[in-house]
């Protein structure tokens, strides 16, 4: 009797599998995914599960990636404008720090994983994705090459021109919050998300724009 009951049940299951049950729609799948994320990920070390409670721009870009379509232009502009507002400009008007400290920071990919300590110095992760000093052969290709950054953009030749000023400001903003210029940029929002400090951003600026930096040699 029990066996028969089990058999009947599995037949129902089979019928469900074969045709009755279907894959739910996109919104339901999104909800299911969110529930699975909630039940699958947990706090570990310095990384809290709440880091997956992302903001509007990140949610929009994840959804666009799933759909395989870029964000609607108007939506993207709006999101970028909101991200742009997070950027703080140097109070003293001085954008360039120490390129040597910048190079050290660019080399490091450390920090903010669950095996890192709270006092681990976060790296800038730059070489993971970008070419910078041409003598460093171990560089990634996820981002564009930044070798010759200041030189090829004319900042080294004439640092005080209006064109150079625009490039310096863009570079600062891009390091602070890359999503201010391209909503779905792959680049982390380095200062905005607390990965590096404002002072460290200045050091990276120097690595890119100081005439003595190996990037511009």
């Amino acid at each position, binding site marked *: 009797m029990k066996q028969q009951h089990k058999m009947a049940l*599995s037949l129902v*299951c089979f019928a*469900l*599998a074969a045709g009755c*049950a*279907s*894959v*739910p729609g996109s919104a339901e*799948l*999104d909800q*299911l*995914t969110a529930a*699975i*994320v909630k*039940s*699958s*990920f*947990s*706090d*570990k070390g310095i*990384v*809290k*599960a709440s*880091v*997956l409670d*992302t903001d509007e721009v*990140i949610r929009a*870009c*994840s959804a666009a*990636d*799933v759909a395989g379509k870029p964000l609607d232009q108007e939506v993207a502009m709006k999101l970028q404008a909101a991200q742009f507002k997070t950027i703080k400009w140097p109070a003293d008007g001085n954008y360039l720090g120490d390129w040597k400290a910048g190079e050290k920071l660019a080399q490091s990919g450390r920090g*903010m*994983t*669950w*095996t890192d300590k709270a006092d681990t110095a976060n790296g800038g*992760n730059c*070489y*993971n*994705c970008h070419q910078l000093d*041409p003598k460093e*052969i*171990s*560089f*990634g*290709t*996820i981002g564009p090459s930044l070798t010759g950054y200041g030189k090829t953009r004319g900042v080294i030749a004439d640092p005080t021109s209006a064109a150079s000023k625009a490039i310096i400001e863009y570079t600062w903003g891009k390091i602070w919050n890359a*999503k201010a210029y391209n909503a779905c940029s*792959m680049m*982390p*929002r380095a200062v905005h*998300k*607390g*990965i590096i400090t404002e002072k460290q951003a200045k050091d990276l600026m120097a690595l890119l724009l100081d005439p003595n930096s190996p990037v511009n040699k």
Partner: protein
Amino acid sequence: MKKMMCLLALAGLTASAAHAQKSAAVQAIEEYRAMLADGNPAELFEAKGEDLWKQKRGPKNASLQQCDLGQGPGVTKGAFVTLPRYFADTDKVQDLESRLLSCMENLQGFDAAEIAKTPFGKGEQNNVTALATWIAAESRDMTFNLPQVHAKEQIAYEVGKRLFFQRGGAHDFSCASCHGAENLRIRMQDLPNLTKNPGDGIGFAAWPAYRVSNGQMWGMQLRLNDCYRQQRFPYPGFASDATVALGVYLGVNSHGSKSIAPALKR
């Protein structure tokens, strides 16, 4: 092994032109891999896994020889290349490692949740890794052919796809940040595009693998776990719905590619 690593590092330091240096380093690594391939240490884990499969263990003092990996009780050949898949008895889509947990619980009386909570490289986790290594080896050179028939298998693929593109954490990274396009590299490390079939023995088709750099045997669960760690994500549970669904996405995308597992990795 250490000596060879030093030689590699030296080769990297002494070559002059950037291009020549790269190809020399890549060549040295390839030679090193070829040398190790003659005796992949994964074979030790394979042998251990086969023993564990046949050994009577656990509170019920039973072997795993009646474990159904999707091809019928006890059938190990060809099972790996169809996983993850739906199992009626658990009413879940399961990958190799989560399925092994079910069998260890049901047949041998182990506590699956307890093993899932055990850190990698400790206690029964080591046995799950060895078992997975052997089961994978039983499908060596076979092509991936995950079923997408049951609604839950199709749903798992769709969820896995959403997980693959899920940006988050301090750095806003998703799996796709590194594995979403062709010809990407982090530092010197080539990154396969996992949104499509990356080719025989690449990506999904290369794990479990023995990692030369740390001398550890890694199953797919640990491979995904370490990706998430580097992604600055929180900790994904072992055999969790998220890691299994992600496995379905990667496995279905790898349809038709040849499994080289257990492989040898950097």
